[in-house]
Protein backbone atom coordinates (compact mmCIF):
# COMPACT_ATOMS: atom_id res chain seq x y z
CA UNK A 1 0.00 0.00 0.00
CA UNK A 2 1.37 3.33 -1.00
CA UNK A 3 0.29 6.52 0.71
CA UNK A 4 0.82 9.42 -1.60
CA UNK A 5 0.49 13.19 -1.38
CA UNK A 6 -2.55 14.39 -3.27
CA UNK A 7 -0.54 16.26 -5.91
CA UNK A 8 1.25 13.14 -7.03
CA UNK A 9 -1.58 10.65 -6.96
CA UNK A 10 -2.26 10.82 -10.67
CA UNK A 11 1.27 10.09 -11.70
CA UNK A 12 1.50 7.39 -9.08
CA UNK A 13 -1.43 5.56 -10.62
CA UNK A 14 0.47 5.56 -13.94
CA UNK A 15 3.56 4.27 -12.17
CA UNK A 16 1.52 1.56 -10.50
CA UNK A 17 0.17 0.46 -13.87
CA UNK A 18 3.61 0.42 -15.36
CA UNK A 19 5.00 -1.48 -12.38
CA UNK A 20 2.24 -4.04 -12.67
CA UNK A 21 3.02 -4.52 -16.35
CA UNK A 22 6.66 -5.11 -15.54
CA UNK A 23 6.34 -7.30 -12.45
CA UNK A 24 2.74 -8.42 -12.13
CA UNK A 25 2.61 -6.99 -8.61
CA UNK A 26 -0.37 -4.72 -7.96
CA UNK A 27 -0.19 -1.60 -5.85
CA UNK A 28 -2.96 0.02 -3.80
CA UNK A 29 -2.75 3.79 -3.89
CA UNK A 30 -4.04 5.85 -0.99
CA UNK A 31 -3.91 9.58 -1.41
CA UNK A 32 -4.31 12.42 1.01
CA UNK A 33 -2.71 15.55 2.35
CA UNK A 34 0.90 14.82 3.33
CA UNK A 35 0.44 16.14 6.84
CA UNK A 36 -2.59 14.00 7.51
CA UNK A 37 -0.95 10.91 6.08
CA UNK A 38 2.07 11.49 8.31
CA UNK A 39 -0.09 11.76 11.43
CA UNK A 40 -1.88 8.58 10.44
CA UNK A 41 1.40 6.75 9.90
CA UNK A 42 2.60 7.75 13.35
CA UNK A 43 -0.61 6.33 14.75
CA UNK A 44 -0.45 2.95 13.14
CA UNK A 45 -1.76 3.34 9.63
CA UNK A 46 -1.15 0.19 7.58
CA UNK A 47 0.86 1.84 4.80
CA UNK A 48 4.10 0.46 3.31
CA UNK A 49 5.49 3.40 1.40
CA UNK A 50 4.98 7.11 1.86
CA UNK A 51 5.46 9.65 -0.94
CA UNK A 52 5.35 13.09 0.60
CA UNK A 53 4.84 16.36 -1.22
CA UNK A 54 7.89 17.78 0.50
CA UNK A 55 10.88 16.65 2.54
CA UNK A 56 9.82 17.82 5.99
CA UNK A 57 7.15 15.21 6.68
CA UNK A 58 9.38 12.44 5.38
CA UNK A 59 12.33 13.67 7.46
CA UNK A 60 10.14 13.92 10.49
CA UNK A 61 8.96 10.33 10.14
CA UNK A 62 12.55 9.24 9.70
CA UNK A 63 13.83 11.00 12.83
CA UNK A 64 10.97 9.60 14.87
CA UNK A 65 11.83 6.12 13.68
CA UNK A 66 8.87 5.12 11.58
CA UNK A 67 10.89 4.38 8.47
CA UNK A 68 13.39 1.83 7.27
CA UNK A 69 15.46 4.29 5.31
CA UNK A 70 16.43 7.91 5.02
CA UNK A 71 14.05 9.84 2.82
CA UNK A 72 15.01 9.94 -0.86
CA UNK A 73 13.95 12.59 -3.33
CA UNK A 74 11.84 10.94 -5.97
CA UNK A 75 11.01 14.05 -7.96
CA UNK A 76 11.09 17.81 -8.02
CA UNK A 77 7.80 19.52 -8.59
CA UNK A 78 7.32 22.44 -10.94
CA UNK A 79 5.09 25.37 -10.15
CA UNK A 80 2.80 26.78 -12.81
CA UNK A 81 0.42 29.66 -12.88
CA UNK A 82 -2.82 28.86 -14.58
CA UNK A 83 -6.34 29.97 -15.35
CA UNK A 84 -9.47 28.77 -17.06
CA UNK A 85 -10.97 32.17 -17.76
CA UNK A 86 -9.24 32.63 -21.10
CA UNK A 87 -6.73 35.28 -20.09
CA UNK A 88 -3.29 35.31 -21.63
CA UNK A 89 -0.75 34.40 -18.99
CA UNK A 90 2.48 35.32 -20.82
CA UNK A 91 2.79 38.32 -18.61
CA UNK A 92 1.14 37.05 -15.47
CA UNK A 93 2.87 39.42 -13.08
CA UNK A 94 1.25 42.35 -14.83
CA UNK A 95 -2.14 40.72 -14.35
CA UNK A 96 -1.47 40.93 -10.65
CA UNK A 97 -0.18 44.48 -10.63
CA UNK A 98 -3.08 45.58 -12.83
CA UNK A 99 -5.44 44.85 -9.98
CA UNK A 100 -7.98 43.22 -12.22
CA UNK A 101 -10.95 41.69 -10.39
CA UNK A 102 -11.07 38.01 -9.45
CA UNK A 103 -9.27 36.05 -6.80
CA UNK A 104 -5.91 34.33 -6.88
CA UNK A 105 -5.68 30.86 -5.33
CA UNK A 106 -2.56 29.43 -3.77
CA UNK A 107 -2.13 26.52 -1.38
CA UNK A 108 -1.98 27.32 2.30
CA UNK A 109 1.73 28.19 2.63
CA UNK A 110 1.84 26.82 6.16
CA UNK A 111 1.04 23.30 5.09
CA UNK A 112 1.17 22.92 1.32
CA UNK A 113 4.65 22.93 -0.32
CA UNK A 114 3.27 24.36 -3.56
CA UNK A 115 1.62 27.10 -1.56
CA UNK A 116 4.94 27.96 0.01
CA UNK A 117 6.59 27.98 -3.40
CA UNK A 118 3.86 30.23 -4.79
CA UNK A 119 4.39 32.64 -1.94
CA UNK A 120 8.13 32.67 -2.62
CA UNK A 121 7.53 33.30 -6.31
CA UNK A 122 5.20 36.21 -5.62
CA UNK A 123 7.81 37.71 -3.33
CA UNK A 124 10.55 37.11 -5.88
CA UNK A 125 8.63 39.15 -8.44
CA UNK A 126 7.76 41.69 -5.74
CA UNK A 127 4.04 41.49 -6.40
CA UNK A 128 3.00 39.86 -3.12
CA UNK A 129 1.80 43.15 -1.72
CA UNK A 130 -0.46 43.84 -4.67
CA UNK A 131 -1.67 40.25 -4.74
CA UNK A 132 -2.33 39.92 -1.05
CA UNK A 133 -5.85 41.27 -0.95
CA UNK A 134 -6.91 38.99 -3.78
CA UNK A 135 -5.34 35.84 -2.38
CA UNK A 136 -7.39 32.92 -1.17
CA UNK A 137 -5.75 30.01 0.54
CA UNK A 138 -6.77 26.52 -0.45
CA UNK A 139 -6.47 23.48 1.75
CA UNK A 140 -4.37 21.58 -0.73
CA UNK A 141 -3.15 21.66 -4.27
CA UNK A 142 -6.26 19.77 -5.38
CA UNK A 143 -8.42 22.51 -4.02
CA UNK A 144 -6.46 25.10 -5.98
CA UNK A 145 -7.14 22.98 -9.06
CA UNK A 146 -10.84 22.87 -8.29
CA UNK A 147 -10.94 26.64 -7.86
CA UNK A 148 -9.14 27.20 -11.12
CA UNK A 149 -11.02 24.67 -13.19
CA UNK A 150 -14.39 25.86 -11.92
CA UNK A 151 -13.40 29.42 -12.71
CA UNK A 152 -14.01 30.59 -9.18
CA UNK A 153 -10.64 32.30 -9.23
CA UNK A 154 -9.00 34.04 -12.14
CA UNK A 155 -5.49 32.81 -11.33
CA UNK A 156 -4.06 29.88 -9.46
CA UNK A 157 -0.65 28.45 -8.62
CA UNK A 158 -0.41 24.73 -8.85
CA UNK A 159 1.66 21.77 -9.90
CA UNK A 160 2.60 21.30 -13.51
CA UNK A 161 1.39 17.71 -13.42
CA UNK A 162 -2.19 19.02 -13.49
CA UNK A 163 -1.66 19.93 -17.14
CA UNK A 164 -1.30 16.27 -18.11
CA UNK A 165 -4.27 15.09 -16.12
CA UNK A 166 -6.88 17.23 -17.80
CA UNK A 167 -9.21 16.06 -20.52
CA UNK A 168 -8.58 17.74 -23.85
CA UNK A 169 -11.91 19.53 -23.74
CA UNK A 170 -10.99 21.57 -20.67
CA UNK A 171 -10.36 25.24 -21.34
CA UNK A 172 -7.07 25.94 -19.64
CA UNK A 173 -4.12 28.30 -19.94
CA UNK A 174 -0.91 27.85 -18.11
CA UNK A 175 2.56 29.22 -17.85
CA UNK A 176 5.57 27.81 -16.08
CA UNK A 177 6.91 29.89 -13.23
CA UNK A 178 10.64 30.45 -13.49
CA UNK A 179 12.24 27.80 -11.23
CA UNK A 180 14.63 30.44 -9.93
CA UNK A 181 11.74 32.22 -8.31
CA UNK A 182 11.16 29.56 -5.67
CA UNK A 183 13.13 27.01 -3.71
CA UNK A 184 12.98 23.61 -5.36
CA UNK A 185 9.97 21.57 -4.34
CA UNK A 186 11.70 18.41 -3.27
CA UNK A 187 9.40 15.48 -2.82
CA UNK A 188 10.65 12.75 -0.52
CA UNK A 189 9.77 9.07 -0.34
CA UNK A 190 10.31 6.67 2.52
CA UNK A 191 9.92 2.95 3.01
CA UNK A 192 7.92 2.53 6.19
CA UNK A 193 8.51 0.09 9.04
CA UNK A 194 5.06 -1.34 8.44
CA UNK A 195 6.27 -2.75 5.11
CA UNK A 196 8.13 -5.47 7.00
CA UNK A 197 4.88 -7.07 8.13
CA UNK A 198 3.84 -8.44 4.78
CA UNK A 199 5.30 -8.81 1.31
CA UNK A 200 8.45 -6.93 2.24
CA UNK A 201 10.18 -7.97 -0.95
CA UNK A 202 7.44 -6.61 -3.18
CA UNK A 203 7.33 -3.37 -1.21
CA UNK A 204 11.05 -2.94 -1.52
CA UNK A 205 10.84 -3.73 -5.21
CA UNK A 206 8.33 -0.94 -5.79
CA UNK A 207 10.32 1.51 -3.68
CA UNK A 208 13.41 0.80 -5.78
CA UNK A 209 11.37 1.01 -8.94
CA UNK A 210 10.45 4.62 -8.07
CA UNK A 211 14.08 5.59 -8.70
CA UNK A 212 14.54 3.51 -11.82
CA UNK A 213 14.95 4.98 -15.28
CA UNK A 214 11.52 3.78 -16.32
CA UNK A 215 9.84 5.57 -13.42
CA UNK A 216 11.85 8.71 -14.04
CA UNK A 217 10.62 8.81 -17.58
CA UNK A 218 7.04 8.70 -16.38
CA UNK A 219 7.68 11.41 -13.78
CA UNK A 220 9.16 13.62 -16.49
CA UNK A 221 6.23 12.94 -18.71
CA UNK A 222 4.00 14.47 -16.04
CA UNK A 223 5.96 17.64 -15.66
CA UNK A 224 8.29 16.72 -12.81
CA UNK A 225 11.98 17.33 -13.00
CA UNK A 226 14.39 14.77 -11.70
CA UNK A 227 17.41 15.81 -9.73
Amino acid at each position, binding site marked *: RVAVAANAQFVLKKLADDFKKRTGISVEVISGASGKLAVQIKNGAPYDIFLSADMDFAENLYTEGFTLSKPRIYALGSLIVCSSTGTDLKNWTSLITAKSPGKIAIGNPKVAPYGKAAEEALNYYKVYQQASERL*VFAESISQVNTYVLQG*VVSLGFTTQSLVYELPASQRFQWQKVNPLAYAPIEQGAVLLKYSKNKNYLNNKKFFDYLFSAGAKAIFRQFGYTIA
Partner: protein
Amino acid sequence: MEWTPIWLSLKLAAITTIILLILSIPLAYWLSRRSSLFKVFIEAILTMPLVLPPSVLGFYLLISFSPNGFPGHWLQEHFNLSLVFSFQGLVLASVIYSLPFMVSPLKSALAHLPLSLTEASYTMGKSKLETFFRVQLPNIQSSLWTAIVLTFAHTLGEFGVVLMIGGRLEGSTKVASIAIYDAVDNNQYHEANLYSMVLFAITFVIVILVFIFNRNAARGPLE
Protein backbone atom coordinates in the same frame (compact mmCIF):
# COMPACT_ATOMS: atom_id res chain seq x y z
CA MET B 1 -3.09 31.93 19.23
CA GLU B 2 -5.25 34.63 17.73
CA TRP B 3 -8.67 35.60 18.88
CA THR B 4 -10.09 36.67 15.52
CA PRO B 5 -10.97 33.14 14.33
CA ILE B 6 -12.76 32.39 17.59
CA TRP B 7 -14.68 35.60 17.43
CA LEU B 8 -15.56 34.95 13.76
CA SER B 9 -16.78 31.47 14.58
CA LEU B 10 -19.03 32.68 17.36
CA LYS B 11 -20.37 35.40 15.10
CA LEU B 12 -21.02 32.93 12.28
CA ALA B 13 -22.74 30.48 14.61
CA ALA B 14 -24.88 33.19 16.19
CA ILE B 15 -25.97 34.70 12.87
CA THR B 16 -26.66 31.28 11.38
CA THR B 17 -28.70 30.25 14.39
CA ILE B 18 -30.77 33.43 14.27
CA ILE B 19 -31.43 33.11 10.53
CA LEU B 20 -32.33 29.46 11.00
CA LEU B 21 -34.73 30.35 13.77
CA ILE B 22 -36.48 32.83 11.53
CA LEU B 23 -36.65 30.34 8.67
CA SER B 24 -37.37 27.20 10.61
CA ILE B 25 -40.18 28.38 12.83
CA PRO B 26 -42.64 29.01 9.98
CA LEU B 27 -41.33 25.98 8.10
CA ALA B 28 -41.73 23.67 11.09
CA TYR B 29 -45.18 25.07 11.70
CA TRP B 30 -46.22 24.45 8.13
CA LEU B 31 -44.79 20.93 8.15
CA SER B 32 -46.45 20.06 11.45
CA ARG B 33 -49.94 20.82 10.20
CA ARG B 34 -51.90 17.99 8.60
CA SER B 35 -49.23 16.26 6.62
CA SER B 36 -49.66 15.70 2.90
CA LEU B 37 -47.40 13.61 0.72
CA PHE B 38 -46.07 16.86 -0.67
CA LYS B 39 -44.92 17.93 2.78
CA VAL B 40 -43.31 14.56 3.41
CA PHE B 41 -41.45 15.11 0.17
CA ILE B 42 -40.29 18.58 1.19
CA GLU B 43 -39.20 17.30 4.57
CA ALA B 44 -37.11 14.60 2.94
CA ILE B 45 -35.52 17.16 0.62
CA LEU B 46 -34.50 19.29 3.59
CA THR B 47 -32.65 16.31 5.03
CA MET B 48 -30.64 15.74 1.86
CA PRO B 49 -27.79 18.25 2.38
CA LEU B 50 -26.80 16.14 5.38
CA VAL B 51 -26.15 13.12 3.21
CA LEU B 52 -23.39 14.76 1.22
CA PRO B 53 -19.93 15.17 2.70
CA PRO B 54 -19.74 18.84 3.71
CA SER B 55 -16.85 19.56 1.40
CA VAL B 56 -18.80 18.19 -1.54
CA LEU B 57 -21.80 20.26 -0.60
CA GLY B 58 -19.31 23.10 -0.50
CA PHE B 59 -18.18 22.15 -3.98
CA TYR B 60 -21.71 22.31 -5.38
CA LEU B 61 -22.28 25.63 -3.67
CA LEU B 62 -19.00 26.83 -5.08
CA ILE B 63 -20.10 25.99 -8.61
CA SER B 64 -23.47 27.61 -8.14
CA PHE B 65 -22.12 30.81 -6.70
CA SER B 66 -18.92 31.18 -8.64
CA PRO B 67 -18.83 34.42 -10.61
CA ASN B 68 -19.13 32.31 -13.80
CA GLY B 69 -22.34 30.66 -12.76
CA PHE B 70 -25.60 32.40 -13.37
CA PRO B 71 -26.74 32.89 -9.75
CA GLY B 72 -23.31 34.05 -8.70
CA HIS B 73 -23.03 36.43 -11.61
CA TRP B 74 -26.47 37.85 -11.02
CA LEU B 75 -25.88 38.48 -7.33
CA GLN B 76 -22.55 40.09 -8.09
CA GLU B 77 -24.06 42.30 -10.75
CA HIS B 78 -27.16 43.45 -8.89
CA PHE B 79 -26.17 43.42 -5.25
CA ASN B 80 -22.41 43.44 -5.48
CA LEU B 81 -22.68 40.36 -3.31
CA SER B 82 -20.19 37.57 -3.63
CA LEU B 83 -21.01 34.31 -1.94
CA VAL B 84 -17.66 32.70 -2.49
CA PHE B 85 -14.73 33.66 -0.31
CA SER B 86 -16.89 35.87 1.86
CA PHE B 87 -18.51 35.77 5.27
CA GLN B 88 -21.97 35.97 3.71
CA GLY B 89 -21.21 32.82 1.76
CA LEU B 90 -20.29 30.99 4.95
CA VAL B 91 -23.56 32.07 6.51
CA LEU B 92 -25.55 30.81 3.53
CA ALA B 93 -23.72 27.49 3.49
CA SER B 94 -24.13 26.98 7.23
CA VAL B 95 -27.82 27.78 6.99
CA ILE B 96 -28.37 25.16 4.30
CA TYR B 97 -26.28 22.62 6.13
CA SER B 98 -27.81 23.00 9.59
CA LEU B 99 -31.40 23.53 8.51
CA PRO B 100 -32.68 20.02 9.27
CA PHE B 101 -31.28 20.14 12.80
CA MET B 102 -33.47 23.12 13.52
CA VAL B 103 -36.59 22.24 11.54
CA SER B 104 -37.05 18.57 12.38
CA PRO B 105 -37.11 18.71 16.18
CA LEU B 106 -39.40 21.74 16.12
CA LYS B 107 -41.74 20.02 13.71
CA SER B 108 -41.94 16.88 15.85
CA ALA B 109 -42.55 18.86 19.00
CA LEU B 110 -45.34 20.86 17.35
CA ALA B 111 -46.93 17.69 16.03
CA HIS B 112 -46.96 16.23 19.55
CA LEU B 113 -48.84 19.22 21.04
CA PRO B 114 -52.53 18.58 21.81
CA LEU B 115 -54.78 20.10 19.19
CA SER B 116 -57.19 21.40 21.80
CA LEU B 117 -54.75 24.12 22.86
CA THR B 118 -54.83 25.80 19.48
CA GLU B 119 -58.55 25.26 19.19
CA ALA B 120 -59.11 26.98 22.50
CA SER B 121 -57.01 29.91 21.36
CA TYR B 122 -58.87 30.17 18.02
CA THR B 123 -62.24 30.32 19.73
CA MET B 124 -60.82 33.18 21.75
CA GLY B 125 -60.53 35.12 18.51
CA LYS B 126 -56.75 34.82 18.37
CA SER B 127 -55.17 34.62 14.94
CA LYS B 128 -53.02 31.66 13.96
CA LEU B 129 -49.98 33.87 14.30
CA GLU B 130 -50.76 35.01 17.81
CA THR B 131 -51.75 31.49 18.82
CA PHE B 132 -48.49 30.18 17.49
CA PHE B 133 -46.31 32.64 19.34
CA ARG B 134 -48.23 32.74 22.59
CA VAL B 135 -49.49 29.19 22.94
CA GLN B 136 -47.72 26.71 20.68
CA LEU B 137 -44.15 27.98 20.76
CA PRO B 138 -43.97 28.54 24.55
CA ASN B 139 -45.20 24.99 25.07
CA ILE B 140 -42.37 23.45 23.04
CA GLN B 141 -39.72 25.59 24.71
CA SER B 142 -37.54 22.70 25.70
CA SER B 143 -37.37 21.41 22.11
CA LEU B 144 -36.71 24.91 20.86
CA TRP B 145 -33.72 25.41 23.12
CA THR B 146 -32.37 21.99 22.28
CA ALA B 147 -32.59 22.79 18.59
CA ILE B 148 -30.86 26.11 19.13
CA VAL B 149 -28.01 24.54 21.05
CA LEU B 150 -27.50 21.78 18.49
CA THR B 151 -27.53 24.21 15.58
CA PHE B 152 -25.14 26.57 17.27
CA ALA B 153 -22.68 23.83 18.16
CA HIS B 154 -22.96 22.21 14.77
CA THR B 155 -22.20 25.48 13.00
CA LEU B 156 -19.17 26.11 15.20
CA GLY B 157 -17.77 22.71 14.31
CA GLU B 158 -18.50 22.92 10.61
CA PHE B 159 -15.40 23.12 8.50
CA GLY B 160 -15.90 21.09 5.35
CA VAL B 161 -18.20 23.51 3.58
CA VAL B 162 -16.41 26.49 5.02
CA LEU B 163 -13.07 25.17 3.87
CA MET B 164 -14.35 24.80 0.33
CA ILE B 165 -16.06 28.12 -0.20
CA GLY B 166 -14.28 30.23 2.40
CA GLY B 167 -10.69 30.49 1.25
CA ARG B 168 -9.16 31.20 4.71
CA LEU B 169 -9.26 34.96 4.56
CA GLU B 170 -8.03 36.47 7.83
CA GLY B 171 -10.84 38.25 9.58
CA SER B 172 -13.63 37.17 7.29
CA THR B 173 -13.57 33.46 6.50
CA LYS B 174 -10.80 31.99 8.62
CA VAL B 175 -12.96 30.69 11.42
CA ALA B 176 -11.81 28.79 14.48
CA SER B 177 -12.53 25.35 13.05
CA ILE B 178 -10.20 26.12 10.14
CA ALA B 179 -7.56 27.49 12.45
CA ILE B 180 -7.63 24.30 14.51
CA TYR B 181 -7.58 22.18 11.41
CA ASP B 182 -4.58 24.05 10.03
CA ALA B 183 -2.76 23.83 13.32
CA VAL B 184 -3.18 20.06 13.37
CA ASP B 185 -2.08 19.81 9.76
CA ASN B 186 0.96 21.84 10.60
CA ASN B 187 2.06 19.72 13.56
CA GLN B 188 1.27 22.60 15.91
CA TYR B 189 -0.55 20.39 18.34
CA HIS B 190 -0.09 22.79 21.19
CA GLU B 191 -1.85 25.54 19.29
CA ALA B 192 -4.59 23.15 18.16
CA ASN B 193 -5.18 22.13 21.76
CA LEU B 194 -5.29 25.73 22.86
CA TYR B 195 -7.88 26.66 20.24
CA SER B 196 -9.94 23.59 21.03
CA MET B 197 -9.88 24.38 24.72
CA VAL B 198 -10.98 27.96 24.25
CA LEU B 199 -13.75 26.98 21.87
CA PHE B 200 -14.82 24.25 24.25
CA ALA B 201 -14.81 26.53 27.26
CA ILE B 202 -16.83 29.27 25.60
CA THR B 203 -19.36 26.89 24.11
CA PHE B 204 -19.63 24.92 27.29
CA VAL B 205 -20.51 28.03 29.24
CA ILE B 206 -23.07 29.09 26.64
CA VAL B 207 -24.67 25.66 26.50
CA ILE B 208 -24.81 25.30 30.27
CA LEU B 209 -26.39 28.72 30.63
CA VAL B 210 -29.02 27.92 28.00
CA PHE B 211 -29.85 24.61 29.65
CA ILE B 212 -30.11 26.13 33.13
CA PHE B 213 -32.26 28.93 31.82
CA ASN B 214 -34.45 26.46 29.98
CA ARG B 215 -34.79 24.32 33.08
CA ASN B 216 -35.86 27.25 35.21
CA ALA B 217 -38.26 28.56 32.58
CA ALA B 218 -39.94 25.18 32.28
CA ARG B 219 -40.56 25.09 35.99
CA GLY B 220 -43.61 26.59 37.58
CA PRO B 221 -43.40 29.34 40.15
CA LEU B 222 -44.28 26.97 43.00
CA GLU B 223 -41.80 24.20 42.36
